[in-house]
């Protein structure tokens, strides 16, 4: 096959990406604006010998994903703010028990029922800190329909590579927008295999490899896999001693954060020459593109965060070192801007541009702020 043109909706690109990555289990609960992902999977999975199930709630959805993943499936769900909140305990479980899965969170206006049908980017911090305890998190954020496809493949791959849940943090605008996508759907993409332990005799469920990742055997393969989200020793048996807790939690965070260079992704434009740099992600990045396109100011550029979490202090600092002014447009009251402020304090002028009323930041609004900055 060759490259062809499709008119895809963002949600469908997410679902297509999931299928491309080998996802064969979807459990979810309907919630606007994420439901299109579920509907697509309900249609696509049964004929591919996969499982689709609409569970009784989001708590059950993520719980069933964990069970399915440990039994060998590649499992995802899709939800939005309120449902993502309900999934937080299960998310923590998956992190602790080192279970690959992907949660697609299509951000809508909050708190609570908020603005169900309108875009925001208000779950940036929920993605990072929504579940309790110190933990690593990987969150990816697409800014176009086409990118939703490829980034979803990457999300599934990373969850397998690190044996940890990945948050696919998209928003109402990108998920509901239709764009022309030129793509070869049969193109061979890298798909991360799940490493299977070989010898049941020396097997320990949570024995990490040299990259700090344990390789649990699938249930039903004769390995006596032992999974708990209590602190546990390498065998998987509960152990709440101070020494085990100290060691385990450290490895859990290190296994992701030490390898950040392997997967951290940004997109940039004109950083070499720019005095003013927009730092953006997702829907608000579309406004940045329009502003740069209209103004043609040679001293403006952007840094787009594709990997939202973990935050790469060193790399972002390096990329922004020439900027005098950093403008951070966000569809929330200012969440990611706090990371930028943390990096630079008052050594640079940092301008937060915000909107949380369910409307996009207009190019006019953003251009005016940049001109005055």
């Amino acid at each position, binding site marked *: 096959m060759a490259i062809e043109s499709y008119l895809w909706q963002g949600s469908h690109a997410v679902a297509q990406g999931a299928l491309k990555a080998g996802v064969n289990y979807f459990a979810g609960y309907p919630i606007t604006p994420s439901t299109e992902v579920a509907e697509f999977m309900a249609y696509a999975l049964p004929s591919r010998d996969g499982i689709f199930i609409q569970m009784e709630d989001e708590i*059950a959805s993520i*719980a069933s*994903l964990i*069970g*399915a993943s440990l*039994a060998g499936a590649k499992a995802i769900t899709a939800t939005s703010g309120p449902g993502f909140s309900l999934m937080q305990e299960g998310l923590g479980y998956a992190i602790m028990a080192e279970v690959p899965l992907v949660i697609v969170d299509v951000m809508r206006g909050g708190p609570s029922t908020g603005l169900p049908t309108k875009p925001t980017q208000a779950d940036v911090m929920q993605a990072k800190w929504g579940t309790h305890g110190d933990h690593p998190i990987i969150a990816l954020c697409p800014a176009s329909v086409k990118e939703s496809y490829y980034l979803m493949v990457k999300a599934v791959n990373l969850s397998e590579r690190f044996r940890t849940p990945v948050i696919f943090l998209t928003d109402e605008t990108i998920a509901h927008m239709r764009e022309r996508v030129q793509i070869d759907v049969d193109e061979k993409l890298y798909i991360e295999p799940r490493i299977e332990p070989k010898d049941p005799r020396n097997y320990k469920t949570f024995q990490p490899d040299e990259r700090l990742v344990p390789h649990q055997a699938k*249930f039903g393969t004769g390995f006596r896999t*032992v999974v708990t989200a209590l602190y546990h020793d390498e065998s998987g048996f509960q152990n709440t001693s101070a020494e085990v807790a100290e060691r385990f939690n450290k490895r859990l965070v290190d296994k992701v954060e030490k390898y950040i260079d392997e997967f951290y992704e940004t997109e940039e434009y004109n950083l070499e020459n720019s005095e003013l740099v927009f730092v953006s992600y997702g829907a608000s990045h579309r406004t940045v593109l329009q502003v740069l396109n209209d103004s043609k100011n040679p001293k403006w550029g952007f840094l787009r965060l594709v990997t939202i979490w973990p935050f790469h202090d060193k790399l972002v600092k390096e990329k922004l070192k020439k900027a005098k002014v950093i403008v951070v447009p966000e569809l929330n009251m200012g969440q990611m801007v706090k990371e930028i402020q943390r990096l630079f304090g008052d050594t640079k002028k940092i301008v937060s541009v915000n909107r949380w009323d369910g409307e996009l930041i207009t190019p006019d609004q953003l251009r005016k702020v940049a001109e005055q900055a």
Partner: protein
Amino acid sequence: MREQILKYFKQDKLPHVFCPGCGNGEVMHAMAQAIDELGWDPTQILIVGGIGCSSRIATYTIFDSLHTLHGRPVAFAVGAKLANPNLKVIIVSGDGDASSIGGNHLIHAARRNMDLTLFIVNNYTYGMTGGQYSPTTPLGSFTTTSPCGHVEEPFSITDLLVGAGAPFVARTGTLYFNELVKLMKLALAKNGFAAIDIFTQCPTNYGRNNRLGKPIDLIKTQASILVPKEKYDLLEPGDRVGKFARGVIQDVEKPTFLDHYRACILSTRKAVHHE
């Protein structure tokens, strides 16, 4: 006999954490005996527990084990079973785990007829957190959160499950050990959702808070309100108050979730084919 049972447990992890006189040991024993008598391949068994004393039973077995979140073992089990239908999935859950925080998952797994076996270790209380009331705590009894006597009516978990459509539902108590083994074998062998409500003694919390004497006295008190199903059915409604039927409460055949799911896929494929 001892060896036949012990081989299903991680012997290096024994003794377990349960209090002296606790009924979890009887449940563990009965379960191992039932599996042994069925001659099942241990490598094809997945045992799932929630959070609570009884849920810990899962962690002591030699099967693949999944110790989950409070209230969620049924939902975890659904995923594992659907991803690998060859697994024999057993869930061990407390009365609080299964019917309070996990009540929603319980009724929907029963309604969908997920092919899972659920042993509800019903000790009338929250053992692990120190003896608070649960949905099965009898009216008037004392727990740390009902210091004046409990003001709520308890659930009959079996009525709930029959109402939700579970094809196999049974009840017994730890005193009736042989019946427990027999019911467990039936539940395990059932193709579809099968649950047993097992009245189990918690001498440390429920027994002590209600001054019910030694563990054996508590076992007998709990057993005294269990009436064989055939006799229970003949009782006048007024005489049933405070009593519970024991034995097989419901046993019917019906297609499981996966039976329906597979049939639906086949018919869709045929439809596509005929176009």
